[in-house]
């Protein structure tokens, strides 16, 4: 009798996990932080939200395009994706030979990523939300001043083809989120709001936008060049672009 009761409780507990095939999320407690392009007076406040623990995988995106054929390679509207969209896939619904189910999905446009999240009742994180969570290391919510923090990110930049790694293969950070650094870049909802123009040296004029993407004057931490590269990457994108090194994950308001 007792065993049955235990079993029943177990099943009850397991049920939501089984029923909900969406990836796990964790709570992120909001707070204030100074982004790379800002000063003390430009503290950004972040509200509480939940974030996917892992980037969206090939398997998950495969399920998505099966459910929403409009995002299959041959059906996707050309306004919303470029020619490289899901290019490595064998067909509309079969992954490429070298693509693992547990690797992050890449070569998807901002439009596709955004719709994916919305179909799960979620949304893409903002740049600030993403950067806020990604400035943590294993033990500290803001590890940007640490040498080891930057070194880890930079050593990733120097490793080729990290998009082939599986999710969870990097460290679990302070917020219990994996893989923010080490696998792929990630889409954000407002990826182009910090303007790094093609000419990254001229954006120092006073009359350019408040958050100018200069490589010099406005940054809070000139040595944090790992972040410069992230902002530069975002600045090079258009919403229909797809990249072999660019995936995404979703967040949800609490």
């Amino acid at each position, binding site marked *: 009798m007792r065993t049955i009761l235990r079993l029943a409780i177990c099943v009850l507990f397991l049920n939501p996990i089984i029923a909900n095939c969406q990836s796990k999320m964790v709570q992120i407690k909001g707070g204030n932080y100074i982004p790379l392009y800002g000063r003390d007076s430009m503290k950004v406040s972040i509200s509480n939200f939940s974030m996917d623990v892992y980037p969206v995988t090939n398997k998950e995106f495969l399920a998505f395009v099966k459910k929403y054929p409009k995002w299959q390679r041959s059906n996707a509207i050309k306004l919303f994706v470029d020619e490289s969209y899901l290019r490595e896939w064998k067909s509309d619904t079969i992954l490429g030979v070298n693509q693992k189910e547990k690797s992050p999905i890449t070569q998807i446009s901002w439009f596709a990523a955004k719709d994916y999240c919305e179909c799960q009742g979620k949304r893409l994180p903002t740049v600030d939300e993403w950067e806020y969570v990604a400035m943590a290391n294993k033990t500290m919510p803001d590890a940007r001043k640490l040498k080891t923090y930057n070194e880890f990110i930079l050593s990733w930049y120097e490793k*080729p083809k990290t998009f082939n790694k599986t999710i969870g293969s990097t460290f679990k950070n302070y917020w219990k989120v994996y893989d923010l650094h080490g696998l792929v870049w990630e889409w954000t909802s407002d990826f182009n709001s910090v303007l790094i123009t093609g000419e*990254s040296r001229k954006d120092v004029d006073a009359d350019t936008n408040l958050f100018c993407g200069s490589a010099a004057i406005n940054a809070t931490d000139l040595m944090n060049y790992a972040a410069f590269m992230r902002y530069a990457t975002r600045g*090079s994108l258009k919403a229909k672009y*797809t990249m*072999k*090194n660019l995936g995404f994950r979703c967040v949800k308001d609490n």
Partner: protein
Amino acid sequence: MRFLKTVCLLCITSLLLTSCKSDNKKEVAIANNANIYVKGTMEAELTAPPLVPAPVGNRSAKKLLVNMEILEKEGTMTDGVQYVYWTFGGSVPGSFIRTRVGDLVEFTLSNHPDNKLPHNIDLHAVTGPGGGAESSFVAPGHKKTFSFKTLNPGLYVYHCATAPVGMHIANGMYGLILVEPEGGLPKVDKEYYIMQGDFYTKGDTGEKGLQPFDMKKAVEEDADYVVFNGKVGALTGDGAITANVGETVRLYVGNGGPNLTSSFHVIGEIFDNVHIEGGDNINKNVQTTSIPAGGAAIVDFKVDVPGTFILVDHAIFRAFNKGALGMLKVTGEEDKALYSGVKQEGIYNPEGGTIQTMPEEDKKEVVVKIIEKSLAQKMKDGKQVYGQTCFACHQAEGQGIPSAFPPLAKSDYLNVDVKRAIGIVLNGKTGEITVNGEKYNSIMTKQSLTEEEVADVMTYIYNSWGNNKTNVSVKMVKDVKNQ
């Protein structure tokens, strides 16, 4: 009469006016290159260093298609040291682009899909915002096309200008674009492409393994490597550039930086002509030409005698300690009238072995009581000296190298005369000797060791590998020295 005067005055005024006009014309001659008529289309030939594309000659201005790919890839900085280079066209420096004044260059920059980062290109030959950087900022897996008219003849640097700019340059993203004047440059026999760059690694110079970029050293301009064409030894050995006696050689020399100015020099040659800073101004009979970071120079000279001519940054520690060293090998008939060819043979150890010091003169002899070390201590210290100084020639077990360096193990020559052996270490030795029945005719240089070190290393040698176990004291060394 009055009428005549007026006419005269008018005539003179108009003359003056027209002459003024023609002067103005000369001054704006450069701007007129914008009007050079473009006829036909051709694909640009791109070459990896040290090669350059064929001369433009007197072809007419064309629409010139340049297709360049950006590749981030691992390469070798020097033996055992790997580095992730970011490249234009797969090489450091990037592919050489050759154009003529008035060309309309249609430039397509492609960023390989496997790359992690966005890039762009700033060509100093471009008249326009960012030198093209603004129009060429491109994400991995994408390409961008823009065009520009070459208005000024000269040799120009191009480089990546994406944030953080310094890092993109420090990783090798630079190269040269040549804009030839109307009718081309004067003909020469050989042309080469050489570009200096400074590199900054987490490890010290020569530290093995995959070395990451070091931003702190880059900011402090503390270079670990200063090299020609992207790596130590790119232009030496098999990579050396070549010419035959009597030929004229032109070098297109660039400096990618990011930080250091080059004092470019070819040992044993004098530049007949230098296009200062890659422009129109020609200086003659130049020994060393200064090339700023982000600048270039065109140098040419005639090679009159055979031999190996060494290319260096004459800020000379960069050459011998950080890699800025190349070779021009010239073959052909000797000309004794120009260069006698008499050679003093000798071994030159640039940096290896012990540290070289200048002899100190007038040093007062200080009498120090000599404390003789224990045999065990001597063996320990002597082994270290041996490893630093003798090892390379005489080998780990004192076995020597057949027909080059005599053995020390079980050596009759060594064991028979301790004083002679000490003397050789102190003073060096040239000429034929017989060791264990084998003849050797090589050179051992004078070693810069202290008396104590000589005693230690000799004791180590005599007490190893089956030798006669002589314990060499500092006093014995002193005695030989004072003989």
